[in-house]
């Protein structure tokens, strides 16, 4: 799966539990995405400064920089990047706050991988219209 600039779509995963990144790397690489995985927000944002990502999937509760902060930073630096929040503490309040700050979707852990796949594909389709080499399936 590639973007309009003929590069693969890029997905950034931030979650302080390494298992989350490992599994998402496997799932989305299989779909043809380029996946980068981080367990902390700081280095993840540093990676974003080097190259653009199409979608960011981030945990909410993390030590140091939390998911809301990641969301805010991504929105400021790269407004086109979609942010999907995944968290075990799914509460109405946090979800509402995340949406008001521009999160694309909010998914409560644990979730079916299919659910996140669909959200990511929707986020990619949501890109501003433009010529593309490959469309999401």
């Amino acid at each position, binding site marked *: 799966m590639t973007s309009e600039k003929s590069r693969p779509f890029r997905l950034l995963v931030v979650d302080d539990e390494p298992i*989350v990144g*490992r599994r998402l790397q496997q799932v989305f*690489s299989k779909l043809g995405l380029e996946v980068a995985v981080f367990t902390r927000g700081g280095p993840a944002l540093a990676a974003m400064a080097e190259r653009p990502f199409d979608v960011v999937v981030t945990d909410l509760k993390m030590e140091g920089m939390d998911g809301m902060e990641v969301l805010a930073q991504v929105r400021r630096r790269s407004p086109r990047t979609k942010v999907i929040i995944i968290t075990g503490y799914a509460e109405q309040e946090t979800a509402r706050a995340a949406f008001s700050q521009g999160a694309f979707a909010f998914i409560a852990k*644990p979730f*079916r991988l299919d659910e996140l796949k669909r959200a990511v594909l929707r986020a990619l389709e949501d890109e501003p219209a433009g010529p593309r080499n490959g469309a999401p399936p």
Partner: protein
Amino acid sequence: MAGRPQHSGPAPACHPVRLVLERFRRVLAHNNHALELIADMGEKLGGDFLFDQRYILDSLARLTAAVRTSIEALNELDDQRHQELFPVCDRLTAQLRAVAAGREEREGPLLLPLAAIRPRHWGLVGGKFAHLAEICRDELVRVPEGFVVTTRAYHDLVEANGLREAIDRFEGLLSRADAEAAEVEELRGRLETALRQASPPPGLLAALAEQLAAMPAAGQGPFALAVRSSAEGEDLELSFAGLYRSLLNVPAETESLFQAYREVVASLFSPPPVQYRRRLLPGEGPFAMAVGCQRLIEAAASGVAYSADPLAPGGSALIVSGSWGLGEAVVAGGPADSFRLEKTPPFRLLASQTGDKRAGRYPAPAGGLEERPIPPADRNRPCLTPDQLAAIAARVVRLENLARRPVDVEWAIDTRGGISILQARPLLVREPEADARALPAALDAYEQLSSGQGKVVQQGIGAGPVFLVSSQGDLQHFPDGAVLVSRRDSPSFARVMHRAAAIVTEIGTPVSHMATLCREARVPCLVDVPSILDKVRPGMEITVDAEDRRIYRGRVAELATYRAASLNLEASREFRLLRRVVKTVSRLHLLDPLLRELTLEDCQSYHDLLRYIHEMAVSKLVEVGRDERCLLRDHLVRRLDLPIPAGILVIDIDGGLAPEAPPDQVPFAAVTSVPFRAILQGMLFPGAWHRETMPVGFMDLVSSMVNMPPNGLVGQYTGHNIAVISRDYVNLCFRFGYHFNIIDAHCHEVARDNHIYFRFLGGATDLTKKSRRAKLIALILEALDFKVRVKGDLVIGRAGNMVRSEMERTLDLLGRLVGFTRQLDVRLESDASIDHYARAFLLGNYDVVSKP
């Protein structure tokens, strides 16, 4: 019921029945809630969910709260007579916390014989030997006998030598990316040296001596040992292979073995694995080391085998290479023979290359191995015969099936020709990145028989020829590596699961009993795939991708490559932890609630406790149901007016009878309870309720009177058959003739909540005839996909996780079964008649009962 706590003191208060029923429902609701939490956790093991450690800990906390609430609800129902359940719950909770904290690897035996290792020991024996213990259960695979020095022994060793604090500090360093390399190295070296010189912990030497004495010496002379590492997580990451030490030809006496043991344990802190962990697995530790000690095979030849060609893992060839003597030459890359064989029987030889084998490694008299020259005549002769090659190939294919991915196997043939498997681990395949990128496009080129449909029970990828199963008998012919396709799921598939490449059914749920078994066998499985039976035919090759829910026509080589190249994340810390937690909470020890031995001491898991609570709650209800004063006072009992003389009294809790139903003599038409109606429908089915009086012999009657428990359940309901019902629930206790029968069923829209519990006891004949009837009922229940236990003349059957229509169909058949077997034991003159009557019932020939 005998064996139950006998309550002394005043008789229980006669509460209004409505209040009792309300409390009973509350117990059921809390119980079900707890069971749902257990089922939810089990479902997460299938790989279709993303979960983290936080989820595991949260779920445990919720489950613990739910179990306690359930106990409180039972106490409320039964006048606070079950206070003793709280300490039991506390004990189980403490045990579970130890599991969740990973502390159970510090408790348990110091040593475990390989043959005695069960899944509950996996935390104690390390990755490699958990796996070997699993494959040595397979009838085809032989693993050299031996035992494992457990992680408990490792922790004892650490404590006894005062190393705990240093190890904790070391693990702290490893989990930090910014730790000073020099500091890590200094501590690493200190630990390695200290463990090499460690003193034995209390009891270890004696235990080793005892195990060695218990290993019978095969053949002549003393035997030697192979001592191998089995670290936790060793099978998680393919490249751990070979990083820890293994020692061959260790003398089978205590002192030498302990020295070898120390060497292997110390390799946990040798440079290569530590570097590896720092680089690739930060935060995965701490790892404890178990050590396997097995009889050393006096190998005539040995080597390795790959179940797939690493360069073309999607192909249909496997590779065997070998040399004379012990297999180190092959592993180290010395001259060897190599063979390429077809992966399917008869494992035709495709190509072979014979190496110039000038030397081989053999056990040295002083321990360890030595190199010896190979006689000239043998140097250029293949070390394996065609028959031996085929035998190795069959085992390698079996092992690939068990592992669900290509495997790298170490094998040895002893001087008498016996084949042993020394090790089996995932085959390391590196997929070129370009190929990985091209996967989505490559997959598009294949025809998809199904896409995005069905539910994932167990993730994974499997390919093979379709084998259709429509009855349990078909399973007898199930070939290794086939894809099992069936209309509905069944726990009976367990017989062949470990040999199946994948399982696909048209009907089924991810929380069925079969689903649990699939996850244990890790067989890729999709259920609820619409009309798959119309799209496949027997023998047709298909590939099931139970990750993306696709089924392809043919073998998709690219997916096989993908499978071989991807990390097995189900071996990761979180999956291992959740698997252990689920095992601990869901293991069921109380299988015979009707038997005398039901005691609180038997409650060894939350699941046991929940079952016990359920039994106690049902007993309370039965007690109330028996007390006519309570029932009649509340005008809640109504007689049922049926065209058969079943004599059933009904207590309607909620919506089980139509609002306009008469206060007495309620007709069948007014029954609105879904499960009860289904049972009655079966009882009323033409022919199922035979009216002939059976010829009961005098001795039959005598024995029934002698064997009637004076105060048992059998005697309680003289004249009354009672059904407690609601819209979606029935608890039917009844006596017909001389036997006692309970059907407890819950049936509504959510398949997972549905269950049927059937038990049957007693009968007016001698024990042999009664046992025959029990067997007959068991046979029929099994055919209806019940999980069945028989003990003497007691039959307990369970089924569940069925959609509502299936529930109704099954309950209808149970109604017919009740009628059919009512007096049948009198007729069961021989064991052969069991099959005869079972077949007649399943074919619908109910009138066979009234025929002489």
